[in-house]
């Protein structure tokens, strides 16, 4: 594929305040066919805002792979009002869409953000909003604006105002330290939910986005906890003998599927959350693990080596006969359903390489979408547009994201530590 290197790299790296971010993003591969769009720096009315709203929006749109924002130095004009827009200029520049806006400071550290989106060729406004903001949530408001623009121009909901959870491990004075962290979908505003000297694994979002389940070895063995993100309070969900792993929520949030080896072998169980009733769903001599619910709640896909090598299988939610769904390659594991339930993202191993692939469940077409050697833990964005995953670069674990069609990839780089097991949050409920 012919690679067009976008100038967004500069935009992102020059973003004010990027130093405070634990994760920064480099775009490692560009694409043809991204829609040219100009996002003009928003005018400041009153006190300057602590964030550059237009740059956050432009970076979001660029990360989706669907848009190619014009570099700031190439903008031929800086309109912030409708009357200042000369559509002919923007047609000359070759952009399809134009975004302008302003950030007005109000009393008490509050702001009002106004923006408008124009179709350059038809010379008309497509949408425009005025949103309240505070210094603390200005980045969030910028992500919401990017969501509105994305939906207006693509017809699909945006997923920029979402978060990712992930695990970091690093060595400090020879001691290993593990952290469960949360960050905005662009890697900013990281916060730590849990720190441990023992491994942390397998974070899983509740469908309402308020809680995370995860595996912790803090007691010297695996236990599954559920932690409330807002309050930090947590409870122990499973601490049976042997494996307590791979938690995943049902779409209605009332039960979880998980892997236990309490009966002597790694098997999949369903745990009812209100009464803690446990139902065993698999019986095989092999390893059965990594269960995930289909979005409609009717079936469960999981990894099993019952056929000799790890492959994905699908069974009814109540358990019972499982059907194999992957046939290509010697290794297929770690399934995540696309939000529409039509595809799976998975880890595909072939010829000593482990890459992220998507599997269309109707056509059975398997498509490799990552280009690493040891890629793992794919997780779909809640609008299905992208897949975030863990990869390795320079012998360190980093996160990367790829558009779900495989055409656009980018890396989230962290200055220290190994980052892995990214999981994308559901859509915020307030929408």
């Amino acid at each position, binding site marked *: 594929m012919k690679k067009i290197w976008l100038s967004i790299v500069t935009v992102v790296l020059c973003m004010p305040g990027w130093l405070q971010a634990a994760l920064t993003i480099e775009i490692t591969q560009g694409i043809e066919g991204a829609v040219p769009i100009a996002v003009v720096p928003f005018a400041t009315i009153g006190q300057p805002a602590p964030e550059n709203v237009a740059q956050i929006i432009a970076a979001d749109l660029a990360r989706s792979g669907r848009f190619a924002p014009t570099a700031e130095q190439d903008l031929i004009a800086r309109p912030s009002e409708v009357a200042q827009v000369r559509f002919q200029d923007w047609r000359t520049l070759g952009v399809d869409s134009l975004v302008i806006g302003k950030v007005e400071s109000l009393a008490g550290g509050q702001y009002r953000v106004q923006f408008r989106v124009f179709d350059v060729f038809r010379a008309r406004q497509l949408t425009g909003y005025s949103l309240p903001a505070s210094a603390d949530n200005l980045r969030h408001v910028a992500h919401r604006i990017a969501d509105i623009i994305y939906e207006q121009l693509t017809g699909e909901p945006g997923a920029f105002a979402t978060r990712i959870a992930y695990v970091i491990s690093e060595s400090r004075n020879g001691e290993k330290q593990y952290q469960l962290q949360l960050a905005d979908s662009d890697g900013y505003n990281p916060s730590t939910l849990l720190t441990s000297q023992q491994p942390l694994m*397998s974070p899983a979002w509740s469908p309402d986005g308020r809680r995370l389940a995860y595996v912790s070895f803090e007691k*010297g063995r695996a236990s599954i906890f559920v932690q409330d993100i807002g309050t930090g309070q947590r409870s122990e969900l499973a601490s049976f003998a042997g494996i307590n792993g791979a938690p995943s929520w049902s779409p209605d949030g009332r039960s979880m599927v998980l*892997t236990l080896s309490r009966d002597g072998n790694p098997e999949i169980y369903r745990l009812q959350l209100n009464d803690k009733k446990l139902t065993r769903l698999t019986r095989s001599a092999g390893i059965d693990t990594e269960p995930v619910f289909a979005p409609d709640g009717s079936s469960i896909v999981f990894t099993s080596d019952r056929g000799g090598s790890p492959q994905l299988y699908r069974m009814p939610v109540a358990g019972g006969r499982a059907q194999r769904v992957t046939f290509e390659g010697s290794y297929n*594991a770690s399934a995540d359903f696309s939000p529409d339930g039509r595809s799976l993202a998975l880890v595909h191993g072939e010829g000593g390489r*482990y890459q992220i692939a998507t599997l269309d469940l109707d056509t059975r077409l398997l498509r490799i979408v990552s280009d690493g050697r040891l890629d793992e833990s794919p997780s779909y964005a809640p609008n299905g547009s992208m897949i975030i995953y863990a990869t390795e670069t320079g012998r360190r674990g980093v996160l990367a994201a790829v558009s779900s069609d495989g055409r656009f990839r980018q890396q989230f780089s962290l200055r220290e530590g190994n980052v892995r097991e990214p999981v994308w949050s559901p859509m915020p409920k307030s929408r």
Partner: protein
Amino acid sequence: MKLVKTVAVAMVMAWIAGCSSTGGTKGGDVAVEDRGAAEGAYEGATTTGVGGYGDLSVESLSDPNSPLSQRVIYFAYDSSEVAEEDRPLVEMHAAFLAANPGVKVSLEGHADERGAREYNIGLGDHRAQSVRRMLELQGVAAEQVSTVSYGEEKPAVEGHDESAWAMNRRVELVYVGY
């Protein structure tokens, strides 16, 4: 790693050979010790066979020259089968545990970093269970053995190549309290 393995196997084989020559009585009342050769790091172990399955005293656990100091069993890729060459090592630990029912062992299963993390937890568990079954078949009581799988979370060797992976696909026998 190959060297380590070869030496470990040699130690155990020589030790068992020494044992059988003394009639295989357990308990160690027939001492056949060669202090002269015991100076060498490995030669020492070949000559401390003291009858039956050798020195099965709890003290031997802290003796770096005892073959019992070999406590790691390695596995092939995506396999949880104990290799033929490692069986004598497992059997020796089984004999020790059977002779010391008060001693408990934790079998810590591990995997290399490749592939899915939770599947690797399953693989580490299967490896630990393989060793557990061998121990129990040799007369070790179920209460003496516990298992835990760390999957790929606690590599013995940091590295992203086959030499590191080979050292990380393992079960470690951890004697509780020793």
